């Protein structure tokens, strides 16, 4: 990463209260994100990958202050986001947008889609009403929808078209960064390809940065420049795309790559998976003292169970493992 980062996250920590342990007990806390650091350069895409519950969504939401962090710092475009007043945060909001996985529940079913796309412009007072109308038409064309569709309601669109509407809405205020949380996971492969190509084209056109969450490594390889692998609320490996895919250093990254489906693995050739990872991750409420991956790691040794590995530079990236591959 050579450019000065657009977003720089240090020590990001997020806790969720979990009710009380007994009548007078202290409220129990679930630490969902545990000291995450990353930089996102302008015009680049950082992928967050990892199993369900590893903290991808929570990390991204806390980084753009849509969820409260309990610690850490987020510098965005020169501003310390955590230190801003709500009024100041509003000024930055237009540069930070989100696209969610579910194109069904993230669009208000009672609003016409033209109004849905215009809403952020209204909320953030961007331009005058005539200018906003022109902008909405422009956005529809940009994402491959027709202007005559602006008066329709969300249910009159297919899943892929609804995702285009979400993208148009996210682009409305000319943001600099868009969080894409599993934006194609709910779509059929053919539609997924349409949306992925669109996201890449828009990035090139507007110099957008994406924080891109996905559990599909094929998708991640296609769209991301840099990848952070998360396990139980921490980044365990981070590298640029060629490095991560050609030479994974963390045993968990290797296991994820091994588990991903691929056309080259044929039943007809007697394919059997090599290093399959056993079981589920441990509960985030009951973390082991050493490496969080030790209970499932094929390489685990005594030291792993006693001493927690720090995220260290490898020259080509970063890895948190005592015995990197």
């Amino acid at each position, binding site marked *: 990463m050579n450019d000065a980062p657009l977003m720089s996250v240090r020590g990001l920590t997020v806790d969720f209260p979990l009710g009380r342990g007994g009548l007078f007990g202290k409220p129990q806390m679930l630490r969902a994100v545990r000291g995450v650091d990353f930089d996102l350069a302008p015009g680049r895409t950082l992928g967050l990958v990892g*199993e*369900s519950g590893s903290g991808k969504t929570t990390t991204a939401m806390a980084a753009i202050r849509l969820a409260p962090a309990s610690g850490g710092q987020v510098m965005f475009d020169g501003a310390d986001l955590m230190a801003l007043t709500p009024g100041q945060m509003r000024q930055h909001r237009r540069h930070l947008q989100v696209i969610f996985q579910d194109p069904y529940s993230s669009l208000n079913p009672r609003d016409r889609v033209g109004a849905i796309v215009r809403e952020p412009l209204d909320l953030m007072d961007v331009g005058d009403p005539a200018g906003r109308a022109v902008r909405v038409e422009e956005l529809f064309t940009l994402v491959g929808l027709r202007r005559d569709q602006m008066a329709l309601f969300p249910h009159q669109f*297919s899943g*892929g*078209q609804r995702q285009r509407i979400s993208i148009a809405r996210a682009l409305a205020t000319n943001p600099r960064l868009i969080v894409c949380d599993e934006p194609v996971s709910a779509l*059929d*492969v*053919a*539609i*997924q*390809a*349409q949306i*992925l*190509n669109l996201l*890449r*084209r828009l990035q090139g056109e507007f110099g957008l940065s994406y924080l891109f969450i996905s*559990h*599909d*490594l*094929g*998708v991640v*390889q*296609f*769209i991301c420049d840099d990848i952070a692998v998360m396990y139980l609320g921490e980044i365990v490996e981070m590298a640029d*795309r*060629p490095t*991560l*895919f*050609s030479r994974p250093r963390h045993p968990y990254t290797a*296991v*994820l*790559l*091994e*588990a*991903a*489906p*691929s*056309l*080259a*693995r*044929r*039943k*007809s050739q007697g*394919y*059997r*998976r090599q290093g*399959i*990872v*056993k*079981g*589920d991750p441990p509960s985030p409420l009951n973390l082991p003292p050493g490496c969080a991956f030790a209970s499932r790691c094929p390489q685990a040794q005594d030291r792993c169970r006693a001493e927690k590995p720090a995220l260290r530079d490898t020259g080509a990236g970063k890895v948190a493992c005592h015995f990197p591959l």
Partner: protein
Amino acid sequence: MADPLMSLRDLRVEFDTRHGRVTALSGISLDVMPGETLGIVGESGCGKSITALAMMGLVPNPPGHVTGGQILFQGEDITRAKPRRLRRLRGREIAMIFQEPMTSLNPVFTVGDQIAEAILLHQDVSRAQAEKQVVDLLATVGIPEPARRAKAYPHELSGGMRQRVMIAMAISCRPKLLIADEPTTALDVTVQAQIFDLMRDIQREFGVAIVLITHDMGAIAEMTDRVAVMYAGRIIEQGTSDQILDNPLHPYTRGLIGCIPVLGREAGDAASLPPLAEIPGIVPPLHLLGDGCAFAERCALADDYCRAVRPPLEEKGHPVACHHAGQGVPA
């Protein structure tokens, strides 16, 4: 060659909808051989799940109707079977697992009780014997501490463990045919890998034939011997998995393969990967299907003949339904 275990012969299924009668499946013919894995692949709405439900004699009625053809299980036409006979087949011979195991498990009973119930319904054993079988089955499907987990409620298990429980229940009566409708779509890739390994082990151990429904060509490659590709309620291409993956002839099949961002270590090296191949547009709704090829409005090779005349499924190396099969850019 052995006799097929399950055969669909020219099957037709229609639904009553607010657009009138629509044809959800049309002229579906396929065989599942004993011990093999047949894949069914296609975008959502193409008729994969209805095909699976038909094999179980479970087409929802109303609004669905089997209006033509035969569903033969070991030669017996189950479209004519009595409900009692069907229930027996479903418990003992044919079993099914679904995408979201949570919805198929009862939240207020322990998983052990639910598996035991399935065993007691179909086998002549005592409660104690059934409970012993439950623990063995949970161990077979790779659940750690099976005796303890048997006492867990569904919500106390992870998604992967719930799917293992469903598989345990499905194999409890040693079925000959296991139908798996997108069994791993809701799961992480690591867990999907575990479930696929389990399905392969079970197939090797019990010789069960598997019908795997998926939209994932990677799953087809790794799991299946043969594949049927469906589009808008018809089979549009069929062959061995290698034929379909290495030499697809139908433009839709080529599109499905070309649009996947394939994971490959070589691909990681390029500075920027080329755009994905796209299949433009979407699957047409059933009530708008015309006389011509249903894929025509999304197909780069479509001509007036395609739009007017539906291509039949014909042998062109392997069966494919396209007037211009094998032409244009290969996948």
